[in-house]
């Protein structure tokens, strides 16, 4: 009791600190270090201990982790962009210009755009590394399949995202993309088989009732299209990808962590 404690140490052992970070103080003992991971909702995505090769950069390349980190960057910067961007044909393009020229620290759009490019690359390389270490083999088959869906969702997020500036790239990409949907067998009005779904002269799969119509909200590109892709990009797809990421992370743990030689 007679010992004088420093301010930091007193804070670290005080009620407030220990109520947030149980255990108190800097984790030095083996037990404390294990408790840190177990007690934190974020850190306990990780196991407490790992095989030593699993923490080496040359094994995982950190690509999965970077993909997740980029997803977080994209979520945050994306939410910020939503404060200025209006998804209408009249304003979309000028709002994008304003984001660079009028908005304080006008690089949020840059971060979002380049981050999206980077995430495609990291997810892509992550898949490559998982293949090369044979980590898709039992018991991780299902998690690989989840991963493929994550790759698909990442690409769809990019696709819906670059439509939003409503520039030349945007409308021609959506023109081409939505016309591909029109060529879907049976449910697209110009797909093989669509002509068979008819009674006499009445066609059921037409320009005003096929999958493209539902996708772009009309027979021609327009306001409805932009709004649809905006909602998909900002709410729909992120929501879905978060669910799949949660499953992905959970399965990594349940499948025994980073794969190891048997």
């Amino acid at each position: 009791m007679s010992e004088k404690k420093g301010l930091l140490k007193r804070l670290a052992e005080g009620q407030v600190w220990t109520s947030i970070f149980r255990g108190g103080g800097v984790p030095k003992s083996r037990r404390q270090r294990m408790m840190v991971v177990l007690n934190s909702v974020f850190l306990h995505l990780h196991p407490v201990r790992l095989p030593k090769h699993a923490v080496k950069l040359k094994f995982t390349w950190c690509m999965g982790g970077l993909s997740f980190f980029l997803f977080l960057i994209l979520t945050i910067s994306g939410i910020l962009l939503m404060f200025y961007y209006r998804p209408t044909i009249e304003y979309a393009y000028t709002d994008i210009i304003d984001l660079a020229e009028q908005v304080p620290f006008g690089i949020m759009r840059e971060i979002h755009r380049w981050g999206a490019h980077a995430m495609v690359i990291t997810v892509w390389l992550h898949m490559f590394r998982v293949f090369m270490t044979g980590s898709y083999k039992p018991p991780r088959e299902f998690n690989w399949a989840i991963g493929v869906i994550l790759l698909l969702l990442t690409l769809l997020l990019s696709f819906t995202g670059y439509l939003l500036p409503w520039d030349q790239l945007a409308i021609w990409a959506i023109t081409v993309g939505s016309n591909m949907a029109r060529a879907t067998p049976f449910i697209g009005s110009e797909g093989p088989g669509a002509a068979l779904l008819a009674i006499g002269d009445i066609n059921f799969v037409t320009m005003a009732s096929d999958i493209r119509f539902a996708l772009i909200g009309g027979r021609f590109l327009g306001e409805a299209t932009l709004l649809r892709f905006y909602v998909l990009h900002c709410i729909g797809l992120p929501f879905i990808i978060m669910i799949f990421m949660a499953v992905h992370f959970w399965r990594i743990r349940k499948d025994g962590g980073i794969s190891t030689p048997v």
Partner: protein
Amino acid sequence: MEAFKHLIDTLSKPTILVSFTFIIFFFVFPPTDWFEKWHKKLKFDGLWSVKSFWIITALLVGFFVTGLSDPDFRSIMLKPDNVPIAGLIFLVFFFTWLSMHQAYNNDKLIDAGKPVDEQYDAPNDKVLVWPDLVYIELITIILFSAFMLVWSIGLPAPLEEPANPSESPNPAKAPWYFLGLQEMLVYFDPWMAGVVLPSLIIVGLMAIPYLDNNKEGSGYYSFKNRKLSIAIFMFGWLVLWNLLIVIGTVLRGPNWNFFGPFEFWDSHKIEALTNINLSEFVYVKWLSTGLPGNILIREIWGMILLLGYFMILPPLLAKTWLKNLFERLGVARYSLFIVLILAALTLPIKMYLRWMFNLKYIISIPEYFFNF
């Protein structure tokens, strides 16, 4: 310098570039023992040494640096949306090298009867996540954030002209990661290139763990014990995906014509590309009878060809060339595997048919939007 550029332009003609890649590919990533023998004889195993890493990197950097002095090449590479492509070329090479380098090291260890590099003695060799992993993560996050900041400050995000429905840009390119898909659209009808083949890619990727029933090589880099699966994956990933993207970015110019990387993008370059369907080949060119009116008779040859390709070829292969594989995989796995592989191979096959004979469709029934 001009001679060098001319050489590169000539070599990057699609027929030459793609044929060269196809031929050399399986000697670099040998799928069978026979190929492996040649792989060793041709000294391709030296590719994955540290020395070749530096040589190839130096060559790549040299190529880019000298290339950038050329205005045509510069205008392609420095287009903001293409910048990640340059990064991708280096990253794909680096990580291919890194994984193969570790794989070959492990193969040597296995040959010598020693444990692989990743071998660990559970549970003694375990490390604590705090601090061993969290500090790596922290440093990675900090460095990567810094990198993203510099990139974002240095390079404005791309934005093209405002949307104009009456004027498609020439060429109208998708972002780089879809250029492989856009390239497929040239050879296949939209329902194939835009719907069926992408779905098959997804299904095929998901099926990998269920098709590859080789237990060996899980949890460590290796090549020797899983030659076939690595060679196939690499072919799909490196050639049919990444190479097509590079072709789409660098070699496709105005009016979607092919241009060499150092060639001027002349929008008036004329290339006669009059396309002919198989039915026209048969009835007009060979039999000189004119196209029959009946759709079924008109397209019967293409249908026979396609049925043969997907129905007769697989059992034939199972009996002959792929006998061992068939026995290892069993009927169900083998069927899925061979259909996926054959479907993937239709892409290069149709590419060649287009380039060599201007063949457009094998089956062409525009009346029902069915073209293959």
